[in-house]
């Protein structure tokens, strides 16, 4: 993989050019998409369920943006090897660049999506604090976690295409089981400890809470939670790379 940064860079460039290339708004969709998604949840939660969280649009936007990054890049990474099957049967190259490039391309689009965050902030300027400068730090933790999971799923998907289909539903459930539309405090208000434990086990517990802390609550992120997620992700990444390397020779044979 080292020495192939150039290949990864070209693949990332191709990926960014390909996405939304056929639409009238083009790359602008990176900004419009999360804003529309936020609007949908605002209607659902505030209008229909009548919840009274102050500045709710900013509250959920702090979760929508990183989740969109996670879910799109994970799906892209999962199918990245299978999508290149014609090439894999003709050229010998380290296949791990494919999921890595897919996830890196998604990361760049996340950075573009931060423009949308700027737009939302125009309405909630009083909640803007220097803490937002820590978004990249939280992003790095999420990147490592996504990388580990994406490399693993890309390998499994080569053998079982079912993964792509199952993943869609798992991702949706995962989103609702993460403190995105609500905070951990709200979900466990009744002293419901199993739910609290579940939310704590979920890497997106600390991740979402940290994003929300720096974007919405003007406080420091959950440092300990982030550190735990980072360490677990690094271990998972090591396992994912080992598994990928182990099954890689079989790719050309089964695709």
């Amino acid at each position: 993989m080292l020495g192939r940064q150039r290949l990864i860079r070209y693949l990332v460039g191709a990926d960014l050019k390909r996405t939304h290339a056929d639409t009238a708004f083009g790359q602008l969709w990176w900004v419009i998409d999360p804003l529309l998604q936020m609007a949908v949840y605002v209607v659902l939660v505030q209008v229909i369920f009548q919840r009274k969280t102050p500045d709710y649009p900013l509250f959920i936007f702090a979760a929508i943006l990183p989740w969109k990054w996670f879910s799109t890049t994970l799906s892209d990474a999962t199918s990245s090897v299978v999508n290149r099957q014609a090439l894999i049967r003709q050229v010998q190259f380290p296949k791990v660049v494919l999921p890595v490039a897919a996830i890196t391309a998604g990361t760049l689009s996340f950075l573009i999506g931060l423009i949308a965050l700027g737009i939302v902030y125009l309405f909630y300027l009083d909640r803007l604090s220097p803490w937002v400068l820590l978004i990249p730090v939280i992003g790095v933790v999420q990147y490592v976690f996504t990388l580990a999971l994406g490399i693993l799923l890309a390998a499994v998907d080569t053998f079982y295409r079912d993964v792509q289909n199952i993943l869609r539903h798992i991702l949706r459930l995962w989103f609702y089981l993460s403190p995105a539309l609500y905070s951990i405090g709200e979900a466990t208000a009744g002293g419901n400890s199993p739910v609290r434990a579940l939310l704590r086990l979920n890497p997106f517990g600390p991740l979402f809470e940290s994003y929300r802390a720096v974007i919405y609550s003007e406080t420091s992120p959950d440092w300990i939670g982030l550190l735990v997620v980072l360490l677990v992700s690094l271990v998972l990444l090591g396992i994912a790379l080992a598994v990928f390397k182990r099954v890689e020779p079989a790719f050309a044979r089964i695709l």
Partner: protein
Amino acid sequence: MAARVAPKPNVLAQSAPMPSPSTRPPAIAVHELGIRYNLRLTRRTTLKDSLPGLVRRDDGVPKHFWALRNVTFRLEHGESLAVIGPNGAGKSTLLLALAGILEPSEGFVETDGRVSTLLTLGAGFESELSGRDNIDLVAAFLGIDHREMAALTPSIIEFADIGQFIDAPVKTYSTGMKARLGFAIATAITPDILLLDEVLGTGDQTFRAKSQTRIRELVGKAKAIVLVTHDLTYVTEFCNRAILIERGTIVREGEPQEIVDLYRTRVEERKLLAEAKARSVASTASA
């Protein structure tokens, strides 16, 4: 040749007999090569198909298929080898193994020098990228150093005859333009070991003539050639040795003319056998 991955000796097993340091290693050494496909996992597997197999292992269906088995040969520098045989004999699988794309299930393949690509025309192109960017992308996939490729790019563009379209997205190209660009990239690098699966013929009459000339150039420059073809005239024209493969194993190795004659006889025999069988089936059916 920095950053190039393929040229290092492709050692895939430790049992290789080490050549004495004074003699040059052969261009290609293949020893007891076997390539096995796992039929349970091949092509569009879903969990539903493989679950019964995971639970119950012995259902009479063969789990494996040996596309190649016990294949052994050496090719010295300066030699060119033709591989002939009926469809499905394992010829293309052999090329994939020589190119390092398929790892041996048993035995080993060693190559000495830069092995050519098996890239067919236009595979790996990104339709949103310009022709120029696609040259870079494909080169990066092939592991060709980007400085080397930058030096080659003008001649690729000229050979492909794309003109100013080279900076337009590939999705605007005609099929012929894509094929020409693909061919120009795939043949831009002069390999030490040239692998040819059929002789590439592409595009209109003029380009086909041009591409034949380019292939002949590569054949002239390469230090070793392996050619897989159905066109038996190429075998005697280009090659000084030939092997006949049937059902994944080498039937005979020898002079091109001898092997071509053997192949022709066996094809004839098989045809007569099939006709006789058809006749006997027809007579039993009518009786």
